């Protein structure tokens, strides 16, 4: 009667006990998986919501008027478009979601409008992210609410700006800001319309300094000036601070909660394991009396603990993921469709942790029982 066979025979004999133990582990694992799945979704949702607040980092030409930029939000000097590629090519930098714009004020059909050419968003190597804003294809335009209303422009119309024809892709909803006065098109179209080939007014980005100590502006300025000395850097501080605080809050919440959940699940599994070992003390005594060494007795109990842990982890992962996917979209409305997804890493994590917890929990009582004088254990009956 090998130890492995005994493990399976005992499991088969005490099916209900085994299933209850698996259920306990599965519940703990499901809670753990659902909590972490929701936690990750929550982090992504927070990051995404914060991103919707807009770009908080602005890089303009060194010779542009700072006063003018701060008053109008438009740089009065341009810089080469290649700056965008230079910044985007950097490794280990503190910003992401880079895009270049070319801005110009013009009078069009008797109305003062802002023309903004927008490049596709680029990310530094290894930091590929979903774009924060819509991508504008060449030959198309997005027309601000006030401009569209005043001039009677509708989706599908073809408008001409300095001999460049653009098809209106979208008339934007009212923003209550300068975007209502803006016509947005691709960067190349804007360069043609404004006759500034290869030039840009500004590079916008989102800084990634939510979790650092120190002044982020100084860090960013030092970092970017070393790469592009012919530029100057501004950070929209209220936006950056709000984003940083919100992300820090959600990170701190999980930093506190995850260990708590891990410990709670571990204790739960431990209690089940201890009960199993206690129920089988007579069996341990018998095996020791028959001459089984401590290692064999431990294998008998720890083997079962591993099986309980593995099966419980797998069932718990499926259950937790199902719960997360079923109820997550009610909580995470923005990112649910694209971001709420099964986390295979949690299956691996659960399959390592649950058996480990079960083994650790079984180990102490099993060692104590296995090293008792078998006489003592047998006489307890």
């Amino acid at each position, binding site marked *: *009667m090998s130890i492995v066979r*005994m493990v399976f*025979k005992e499991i088969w*004999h005490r099916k209900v006990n085994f299933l209850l133990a698996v259920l306990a582990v599965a519940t703990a694992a499901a809670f753990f998986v659902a909590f972490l799945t929701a936690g990750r979704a929550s982090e992504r949702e927070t990051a995404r919501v914060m991103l919707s607040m807009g770009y908080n980092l602005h890089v303009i030409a060194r010779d542009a008027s700072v006063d003018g930029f701060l008053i109008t939000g438009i740089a009065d000097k341009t810089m080469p478009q290649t700056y965008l590629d230079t910044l985007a090519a950097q490794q280990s930098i503190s910003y992401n979601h880079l895009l270049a714009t070319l801005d110009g004020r013009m009078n069009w059909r008797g109305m003062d409008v802002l023309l903004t050419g927008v490049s596709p968003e680029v990310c530094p190597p290894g930091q590929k992210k979903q774009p924060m804003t819509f991508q504008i294809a060449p030959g198309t335009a997005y027309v601000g609410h006030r401009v569209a209303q005043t001039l009677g422009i509708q989706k599908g119309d073809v408008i001409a700006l300095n001999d460049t024809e653009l098809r209106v892709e979208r008339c934007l909803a009212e923003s209550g800001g300068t975007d209502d006065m803006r016509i947005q098109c691709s960067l190349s179209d804007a360069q043609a319309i404004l006759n500034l080939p290869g030039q840009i007014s500004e590079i916008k980005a989102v800084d990634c300094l939510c979790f650092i100590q120190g002044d982020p502006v100084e860090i960013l300025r030092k970092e970017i000036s070393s790469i592009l000395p012919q530029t100057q850097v501004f950070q929209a501080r209220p936006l950056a601070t709000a984003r940083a605080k919100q992300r820090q809050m959600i990170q701190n919440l999980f930093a506190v909660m995850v260990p708590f959940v891990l410990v709670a699940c571990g204790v739960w599994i431990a209690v089940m394991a201890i009960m199993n070992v206690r129920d089988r003390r007579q069996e341990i005594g018998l095996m020791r*009396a028959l*001459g089984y060494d401590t290692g*064999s007795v431990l294998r008998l109990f720890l083997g079962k603990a591993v099986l309980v842990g593995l099966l419980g982890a797998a069932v718990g992962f499926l259950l937790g993921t199902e719960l997360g996917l079923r109820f997550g979209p009610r909580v995470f409305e923005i990112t649910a469709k694209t971001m709420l997804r099964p986390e295979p890493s949690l299956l691996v994590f659960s399959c390592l942790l649950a058996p480990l917890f079960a083994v650790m929990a079984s180990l102490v009582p099993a060692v104590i029982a296995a090293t008792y*004088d078998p*006489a003592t254990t*047998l006489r307890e009956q």
Partner: protein
Amino acid sequence: MLVLENLGKTYRRGADKVEALDGVSLRIDQGEFVAVCGPSGSGKTTLLMVTAAMLHPSRGSVRFDDKNVYDMTGPDRAKFRANNIGFVFQMFHLVPYLSVLDNVLVAGGAIGKYDRTRAKELLQQLGLEHRIQHRPSELSAGEKQRAAIARALLNRPRLILADEPTGNLDPDNAAGVLSHLHEFQQSGGTVIVATHGPAAREFATRTVLLRDGVVTNPS
């Protein structure tokens, strides 16, 4: 074969002390059938456990073939038990989730030898061939004890220690169990039976009377 010298075992609970064995000395030769008799609490079970290298004595020594078993390491004592001693308990101590055959083979696991043929032969000799695949819960008390005897015999031990083996059996089954132990003794094995009843004395080559941990009929 077996020499117990001045054995003492003291159980302590707080300030209380119980002398379960006090100066027990016995010499048991190969092929003997020894009945250790005495009332409940006289130290019979403790004597068997100490003899079986399962319970450290407080004093004295247990020598098996001139080797003090308590000079051995724990793993060596376990091997010693697996190779030399078979056990029969009053409560049978069969593993509830194993079949009768597997329960017998459990003893083989201790020496890494799973001799199914011998296990089946033993069960046949003990009249359990029709119960091989049954669980302990499906057996009568007498059948359980016979299964336990088969388990005790599997590794061809030199010594069988039986602690009240008939304590839970009716007279017919008790006689049957003692008869099987007697057969083992007749084939050259040594048997020590702890009992408070008179039945075992019929088969015993020697009776040791124990009272309050002291042998009252030293030979």
